[in-house]
């Protein structure tokens, strides 16, 4: 190598990420289905390079001097009564994935390890967890890691799982520290990845076997020695990948995590040989997917409550449409109608670009469908669909075209403040049971139509605390001929105490009057604030109209 020049110091990328790398050195053996005595040496064997070799050991066997890739006869020579079983790599990988889902109790973002080319076909089992912003929920990183280690120790009943873990700011650093740091559980303070990684051997850089070999031949024992060389020289000697790994471990290059996501239970997808742009053709394809999805759902006796449609364009742009349903449905025609409604109303139409290449339909949330029993003997009348199902279909169509916040139903609320006595909830929300909150108000004293917000009006009253005499609302003058009231409504004083801020219209006592004008129009208006006690100049507001 040329004369070692100190490389230009590079600033680490401050990403604020915190990554946990977990390493299970004996995963395959410790989680194996084989029934063995955990206090005795145990190994999994497989045929490799024309010999039966050990591919995984438990802790006891490792301490007895066995090592992976050893041939079975050699191992038997050392430990004649060792227990063995055939290895099943797929099963071990599946168990690791299951463990990853279980670890989602700590963070939703859990990824698989970078696949590594190891000598002798041995598999390395580890997981990566992005815990950025999650640690405080468990009382800090140390507490989280200890909790995780304690739970993993008893994860598979009866057998403890050997675990090494590290928390660092980058995937590369965490990976290396989990495997080569002196302690089992390592936590690197934020921004000190480089210092922690530099004393480790080059193998901690996720290098392939030939590269590790090369480092040994060059006499490079630590990453620090490697990092002293200019990157260009390293690239010439090792190729681009080890340099990238080095920069990733030092936090100078970014890296993303490929998360495991639980596969949806009900899904249908279609890959097209060529991108299509026509909405009509897409609708036909979506219809096919809906039919496939509906069939899966019907077989399982389930109905979809939310359907997600993902369209991938040929330029890899992804468009997603999510469709909530009022009632669980497994009706393909219904789903298709909703999607057609939605597609035609996409703002600016569907931008298919150079064509959609993949369509994927997933039932993101499902619920069991109880098939309605058909009535027998209804000969004269038309047979009526189950009311909830019929309404559910209508709600879905209305919501998919008009929006969930437009299709609503009134929900009563126990309050004397008129605008708080009712709120609108989407029809897709479950209908609450009818309690007696509505009965606290006499319905006849309330207007059938309530203005969206009280509108200020100019009022002339005979006496300041009396009923209005005439008023002007929306630039029209009304002469009052009859007034009923006042109905006094005090603000909800307890709201101010609990720290909730009172809204503008809920600070003063209101005196409501029902008034009728000369033509017979009837209004509901109020004076905001008690004269002389709360305010000198009470304002008047129009709040509703009576039919």
């Amino acid at each position, binding site marked *: 190598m040329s004369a070692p020049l100190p490389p230009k110091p590079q600033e680490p990328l401050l990403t604020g990420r915190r990554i946990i790398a977990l390493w299970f050195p004996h995963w395959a053996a410790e989680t194996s289905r084989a029934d063995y005595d955990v206090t005795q040496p145990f190994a999994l064997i497989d045929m490799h390079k024309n010999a039966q070799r050990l591919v995984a050991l438990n802790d006891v066997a490792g301490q007895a001097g066995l090592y992976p890739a050893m041939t079975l006869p050699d191992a038997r020579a050392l430990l004649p009564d060792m227990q063995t079983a055939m290895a099943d790599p797929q099963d071990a990988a599946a168990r690791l994935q299951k463990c990853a889902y279980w670890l989602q109790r700590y963070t939703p973002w859990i990824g698989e390890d970078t696949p590594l080319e190891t000598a002798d076909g041995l598999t390395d089992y580890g997981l990566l967890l992005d815990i950025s912003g999650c640690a405080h929920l468990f009382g800090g990183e140390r507490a989280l890691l200890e909790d995780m280690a304690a739970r993993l120790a008893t994860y598979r009943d009866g057998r403890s799982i050997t675990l090494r873990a590290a928390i660092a700011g980058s995937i590369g650093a965490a990976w290396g520290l989990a495997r080569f740091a002196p302690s089992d559980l390592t936590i690197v303070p934020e921004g000190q990845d480089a210092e922690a990684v530099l004393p480790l051997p080059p193998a901690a850089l996720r290098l392939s076997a030939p590269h590790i070999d090369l480092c040994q031949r060059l006499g490079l024992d630590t990453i620090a020695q490697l990092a002293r060389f200019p990157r260009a020289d390293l690239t010439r000697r090792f190729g681009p990948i080890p340099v990238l790994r080095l920069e990733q471990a030092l936090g100078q290059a970014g890296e993303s995590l490929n998360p495991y996501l639980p596969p949806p239970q009900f899904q249908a997808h279609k890959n097209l040989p060529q991108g299509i742009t026509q909405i009509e053709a897409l609708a036909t394809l979506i219809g096919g997917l809906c039919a496939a999805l509906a069939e899966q759902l019907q077989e399982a006796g389930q109905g979809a409550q939310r359907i997600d449609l993902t369209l991938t364009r040929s330029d890899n742009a992804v468009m997603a449409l999510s469709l909530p349903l009022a009632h669980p449905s497994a009706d393909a025609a219904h789903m298709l109608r909703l999607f057609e409604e939605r597609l035609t109303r996409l703002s600016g139409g569907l931008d298919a670009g150079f064509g959609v290449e993949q369509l994927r339909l997933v039932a993101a949330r499902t619920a069991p469908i109880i098939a309605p029993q058909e009535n027998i003997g209804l000969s004269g009348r038309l047979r009526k669909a189950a*009311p909830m199902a019929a309404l559910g279909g209508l709600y879905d169509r209305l919501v998919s075209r008009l929006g969930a*916040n437009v299709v609503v*139903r*009134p929900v009563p609320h126990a309050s004397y403040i008129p605008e708080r*006595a009712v709120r609108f909830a989407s029809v897709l929300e479950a209908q609450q049971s009818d309690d007696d909150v509505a009965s606290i108000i006499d319905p006849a004293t309330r207007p059938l139509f309530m203005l969206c917000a009280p509108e200020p009006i100019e009022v002339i009253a*005979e006496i300041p605390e009396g009923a209005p005499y005439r008023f002007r609302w929306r630039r029209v003058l009304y002469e009052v001929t009859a007034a009923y009231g*006042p109905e006094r409504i005090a603000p909800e004083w307890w709201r101010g105490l609990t720290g909730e801020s009172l809204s503008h219209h809920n600070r003063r006592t209101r005196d409501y009057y029902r008034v009728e004008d000369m033509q017979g*129009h009837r209004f509901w208006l109020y004076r905001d604030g008690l004269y002389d006690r709360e305010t000198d100049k009470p304002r008047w507001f129009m709040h509703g109209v009576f*039919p």
Partner: protein
Amino acid sequence: MQRALNSQVKKTNRQHNLSRLQTLVARHETVLQTGASVTTGFADIDAYLTAHAGGGLPCGGLHEVAAETSADMAVALGFAHRLAARFLHHAAEDDVLLYGQTHAACRDGGQPYGPALAAHGLSPQKLVYLDGVSLADLLWAGEQALSCTSVACSLLTSSDSAPDFTHSRRLSLAARTAERPLLLALGNTGASAATTRWRIAALPHNGWQVRLEKLRLTHDTPPPTGGWAVYPHRTDVRVEKHDTHIMPLMRRAV
């Protein structure tokens, strides 16, 4: 002679054709009432409907309720709500009322107020409300509701724009086919194919002036031009009871 005979035959043919066409037009113009119908609950109006419309308002039909002036929109809606309540009582127990408003109707007239619905014979639990949509969406929603067996009645409100004859004809046919009622409460009216059109104005002392402007059920007796003066809250026992304990503070003769 032959020519005179020919012209005589032609004339008879023409008269025959004319009368046949007249019958046909009359048949198309008149909606034959076959399905169920409801009464309004006002004795005078019901007496007229019984005599001339075969018992009441047909359930399968489009009914328009128009306001006399823009200030009367609230009373027109009150009348429409009353009709909706009658239709709802006639329907099955779980059926709902779809009540939709355009943006303008929402802004001008306000939203339906849940606690007051009970005084008008409606239950808040049975109300599905569309909170401000365009006129096209409103009419679309009405058509969708007609095809749903669990919607007893739809009440659509537009205070500014009105549907044109094509919309009206389409909805009217859909309502007749579905045998379910569709109520349109309008601030402005245009050409319409509705089965009935009512025009409502406010009357002093809690009253409504109700005129039946159009009735496509009969041809013989037109409805009284002056309409009927009705006092909905006086016939309603519940409201009477509540009103007695609220003392009128001030009542002036003007």
